[in-house]
């Protein structure tokens, strides 16, 4: 069955409409559309958004298939309303050659739950010393346009400059993990009152801001596109705002967890809250929310970082950095941004679908508006639902969910990938392929 009529959805949270889908395309939007043998989906009260696009996902395959695979990660993505995710390059082997990015891309196609667009490493082995073959990755079947050493900072200023310049040849973008390495040696949590009290080595805001500022200036100097990953501090927001005011081609992302969680959660030394960049202060949270609302921060990206239990059930300093995010992203954004009046659903669609797709130049009809003739990538979200997050309620292989036990609003009811439901009635559809 390839025809659906979605009944009485609130398009971008506004007008109540029916949406007809056939053969992967939106064929009609209106009221009281004819059923025409289509499967009807009751979407009363649900918000229809374009399929979400995540610019920052760790799928862990190849290398850490105990934490996540492309298959399980894309299933988690579908449950979160995503139709496209960008797989970060810090796999093992690192996605620094055409061969590895093509492997990840192919695994995504086989998984079928959402499109997987690989991100290529900037430097060989994320080593920070030699450019990876960026052109080969761009020309590969994976068609890579986003390059990032995420997890590590391209800290060498000359190498960063060269990377920014080089990717202009194929309209690429360098997505920087902004972390001055010397200022963050052994860093465990946000540097502030609490790090001093807990005796955990601080990760100062200045270590992020120094790199963000340097990279903005470099990108302007060479006329390149720069994307700042997981921006987390008030200072970074102000620097990006300043760079944009100059007309520089800088974009930035914030993670759901940096929109909601603060460093005081570290007090109990539970590594579930250990993440890089670290959870910051309530003032930083207010600043990234403002930044996302006024457009200084362009997008929300999950930085979904699954880890096996044993890497979190240990002492803080031995634990891995990172938290899951795909299945809770839209709920967190609703809670932090929509229910607070900072964003409309239309603006959420822009920040979680249209803009990330534009930054990555991804094809496949992602980030397109919900209009007749467009590919039927869409998500139906119930904003009136609430749920208490449980770590076991996941399609991911991992359980490192920092929202466990928290009550969050909203629930993804259905996700359509090119007209095929990957999630329906809140359940993964097992026979997607």
């Amino acid at each position, binding site marked *: 069955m390839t025809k659906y009529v979605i009944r009485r959805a609130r398009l971008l949270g506004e007008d109540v409409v029916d949406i007809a889908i056939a053969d992967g395309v939106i064929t009609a939007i209106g009221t009281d559309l004819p059923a025409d043998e289509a499967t009807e989906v009751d979407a009363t009260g649900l918000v229809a958004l374009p399929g979400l696009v995540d610019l920052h996902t760790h799928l862990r395959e190849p290398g850490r298939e105990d934490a996540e695979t492309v298959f399980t990660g894309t299933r988690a993505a579908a449950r979160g309303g995503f139709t496209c995710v960008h797989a970060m390059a810090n796999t093992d082997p690192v996605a620094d050659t055409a061969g590895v990015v093509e492997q990840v891309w192919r695994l995504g196609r086989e998984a079928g739950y959402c499109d997987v667009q690989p991100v290529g490493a900037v430097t060989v082995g994320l080593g920070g010393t030699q450019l990876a073959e960026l052109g080969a990755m761009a020309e590969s079947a994976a068609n890579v346009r986003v390059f990032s050493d995420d997890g590590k900072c391209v800290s060498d200023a000359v190498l960063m400059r060269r990377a920014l310049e080089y990717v202009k040849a194929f309209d690429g973008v360098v997505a920087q993990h902004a972390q001055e390495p010397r200022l963050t040696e052994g860093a*465990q949590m946000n*540097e*502030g*009152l*609490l*790090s*001093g*009290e*807990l*005796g*955990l*080595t*601080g990760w*100062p805001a200045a270590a992020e801001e120094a790199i963000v500022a340097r990279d903005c200036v470099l990108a302007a100097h060479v006329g390149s596109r720069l994307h700042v990953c997981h921006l987390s501090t008030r200072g970074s927001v102000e620097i990006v705002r300043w760079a944009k005011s100059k007309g520089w081609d800088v974009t930035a992302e914030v993670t759901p967890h940096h929109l909601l969680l603060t460093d005081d959660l570290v007090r*109990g*030394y*539970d590594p579930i809250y250990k993440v890089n960049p670290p959870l910051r202060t309530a003032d930083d949270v207010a600043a990234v929310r403002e930044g996302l609302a006024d457009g200084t921060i362009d997008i929300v990206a999950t930085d979904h970082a699954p880890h096996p239990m*044993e890497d979190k*059930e*240990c*002492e*803080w*300093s*031995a634990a891995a950095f990172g938290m899951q995010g795909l299945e809770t992203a839209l709920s967190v954004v609703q809670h932090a941004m929509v229910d607070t009046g900072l964003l409309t659903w239309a603006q959420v669609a822009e920040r979680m679908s249209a803009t990330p797709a534009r930054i990555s130049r991804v094809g496949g009809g992602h980030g397109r508006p919900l209009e007749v003739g467009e590919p039927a990538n869409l998500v139906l979200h119930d904003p009136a639902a609430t749920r208490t997050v449980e770590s076991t309620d996941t399609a991911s292989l991992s359980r490192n969910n920092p929202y466990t036990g928290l009550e969050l609003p909203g629930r993804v009811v259905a996700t359509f990938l090119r007209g095929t439901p990957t999630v329906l009635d809140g359940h993964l559809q097992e026979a997607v392929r």
Partner: protein
Amino acid sequence: MKKHLLSAGDLTRDDAIRVLDTAQELLGVAQRPIKKLPTLRGRTVVNLFFEDSTRTRISFEAAAKRLSADVINFSAKGSSVSKGESLKDTAMTLQAMGADAVVIRHHASGAPHRLATAGWTNGAVVNAGDGTHEHPTQALLDAFTMRSHLGTDGGVGQDLAGKNVTIVGDVLHSRVARSNALLLHTLGANVTLVAPPTLLPVGVDAWPVETSYNLDDSLEKADAVMMLRVQRERMNASYFPSAREYSRRYGLDTARMNRLPEHAIVMHPGPMNRGMEIGADVADSGRSVIVEQVTNGVAVRMAVLYLLVGGATNDEGEA
């Protein structure tokens, strides 16, 4: 008292005084020909040391044995995840063995906290030093030592109200300084932390202490001066230009010691770098109570184990 001793901040003023007074009573045991009480007979105390510290381990071992507890020493050097067992598995092993108390020393800040709260073990957890976080029994023995010198009639029942304590050195990395700042504040003392700005943690202005970059400024009013060990590894990490400069600016030499009030005592948690943070003459002077700190350490740890494991934990009204 709380079930565990993870931070000096876990102790109320009454708790702290109860520990110190109990230690005072137990100190007498050490002077007897037979240095043993039957109090913890049949109880098991595990010394779980992930970091080398012979001094602290034997202090806890002596304390537990003098209370007739069964003592198991478990030494797990190095990172718990690099090779071998995880902290969780170690904890579950100890639980299976029926540990009534786990004394843990760990290189990771917060490891005792994890052990106490993750549900891996039921025993009382005593923090014997965790990373750069805390070392609460050290603070208790320091307070005990101060009280016996600075209090009236040996200090029993008293706090340290109004006493001026100067703590000097690498506060940033010092678990001793953190625990002392908390406990001494609870006991009413005025604490001054003295260090070069590089060795004071961010946010120290919110601690209940005074801070100073200048050692000489606080000497004349000090009732006690505590010198912190400077780790060798700090010397190559640009926290200060050289060992000599550190010693000149922040070392306690004879000239500085002579500017202390008559009654003031000099303390050091050990092990000392003689000639670096403390002059040899100062360490061996009549004002130095450094050896006494070690003696008191056993009594204070006996008191902690007794109060946490000995069944005296629930009679709040007694204090």
